[in-house]
């Protein structure tokens, strides 16, 4: 039996009764740079949040290395979108990276010497050593993205989940991130990255998940990146689905009938 980093089984998610993810069923391999690609509003970030357990699923389940999320939180690191936080927050680069070492169970967790060393290593890895005592609002967009990367690195996870890490960063940061990603892949880490720029897809990723509310295709980049698949991901044809989504909201429809069993 083949091992997967993340198994997504029949996952559906609805915001305000409108389904944004519809019956997603996909297994992701280990040790690859995986791109989740699709147009705006196609549910990419939602899929990430579903994997991280940040939203409740209407149906389906997610397994990480064959385990429930709660048993495997330490193995998975989340790099949120840069815009999702207020960078005026009174914290230095080092403060934020240290957050990667906070652990759930311990009430009064002080950072140990080992923790500090890991934090140091992560900061150096993203080349922010000289900025480590700067307030995070005083950094450029690319540097802020690297702070988030360092925080994930410090966590020492096996799976890294990143939401649009290439948005609003300079070329230097983009290259630095790519270099880092390749290095991490070579160490056997799995990197799952939400991305919207089609131009760069074939350069960045070994494995692709094409998404547009439903799963369009998934597999190695060379196999998946076909004209038909892109057409299906980005081209229309969703008019019918959109109308169904509206009807579901209007009728206060349960997304799945609970307890039905078709014999």
């Amino acid at each position, binding site marked *: 039996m083949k091992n997967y980093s993340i198994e997504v089984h029949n996952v559906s998610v609805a915001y305000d009764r409108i389904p944004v993810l519809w019956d997603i069923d996909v297994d992701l391999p280990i040790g690859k740079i995986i791109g989740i690609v699709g147009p705006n509003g196609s549910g990419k970030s939602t899929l990430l949040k579903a994997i991280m357990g*940040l939203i409740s699923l209407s149906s389906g389940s997610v397994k990480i290395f064959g385990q429930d999320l709660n048993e495997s939180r330490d193995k998975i690191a989340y790099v949120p979108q840069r815009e999702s*936080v207020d960078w005026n927050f009174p914290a230095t680069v080092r403060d934020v990276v240290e957050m990667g070492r906070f652990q759930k169970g311990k009430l009064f967790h002080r950072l140990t010497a080992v923790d500090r060393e890991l934090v140091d290593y992560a900061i150096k890895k993203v080349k922010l050593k000289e900025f480590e005592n700067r307030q995070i609002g005083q950094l450029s967009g690319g540097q802020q993205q690297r702070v988030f990367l360092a925080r994930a690195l410090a966590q020492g996870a096996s799976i890294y989940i990143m939401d649009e890490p290439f948005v609003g960063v300079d070329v230097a940061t983009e290259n630095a991130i790519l270099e880092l990603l390749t290095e991490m892949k070579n160490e056997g880490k799995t990197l799952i990255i939400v991305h919207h720029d089609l131009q760069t897809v074939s350069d960045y990723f070994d494995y692709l998940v094409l998404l547009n509310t439903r799963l369009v295709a998934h597999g190695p980049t060379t196999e998946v990146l076909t004209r038909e698949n892109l057409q299906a991901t980005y081209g229309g044809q969703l008019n019918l689905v959109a109308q169904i989504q509206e009807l579901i909201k209007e009728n206060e429809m349960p997304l799945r009938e609970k307890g039905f069993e078709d014999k």
Partner: protein
Amino acid sequence: MSLADFLILSTALLIGWSCALLGCFLVLQKVVMIGDAISHSVLPGIVLAFVFSSGFDSVFILLGAAVFGVLTSMIIRFFSSKLKLQEDASIGITFTWLFGLGIIFIAAFTGSNADIDKECVLFGELGTTFLDKIIIKGYLIGTRSIWLILPVLLLIIAFITFGFNKLKVISFHADYAQSKGISVSKWHYAFMLLVSITSVMSFEAVGAVLVVGLLAIPPATAYLLVKRLQQMIFLSLIFSTTCCILGYMLANYWDVSMSPSIVMVCGFQFLIVLIVTQVRKRIFSKAAVNFVVKA
């Protein structure tokens, strides 16, 4: 400094510190108005506590009033998330109603010769708290107000010391905290419970409206100056201390109400820091422009 001075000032400082500690996280999480709502809506519970009990057994009823405050934050959330009422409207309507209900209780239970003065509800009576002395075996061990707020302050200090890392992560990014397995909503309500307890216990001394000033203004002032959370907490404690002392002196000097005067000094302190930081920013950006032009 007389004994009365000392007792009153201690009360003010204990309340000011409690509020400053909590306020830092309220300001960073952008939920100051929920704190505002809580501090107003504990009024009905407090009135009931005053009407139906006397002395120390009322402490338990006061704690009941504090639960009411947390309930308010739940009602607000219920209205806005389940019934789709706009959040600002949900806050504005809920707390004004509960505050109004408190005033109605005062009118209904106490009549015109009220035990609880309606104005005291707004400003508190910091100046007279020293009259309610607690004396055991002939030794003065403080006032009722001090003994109400002191345990709360200690509780807050313990909560923030032990939960510092978690509170920091939650305030910075709730989603990230959740992804690390921290139960954000549990911490949120525990925190709101503390805000509620603080407003209840300091109610007699500073009243409903002005608690919010002590919660919001010193942390907001500190926020303008710092780059780390630890510094923000430390500075807001300092600002809280200075405005309590200055406000107290001013109130004595002009013979005006005490807690409004403290909050007023808080406000002026904020304005001074605001102006200084704005001017500094302008000078810096001018200098930068000059530098670039010269180069």
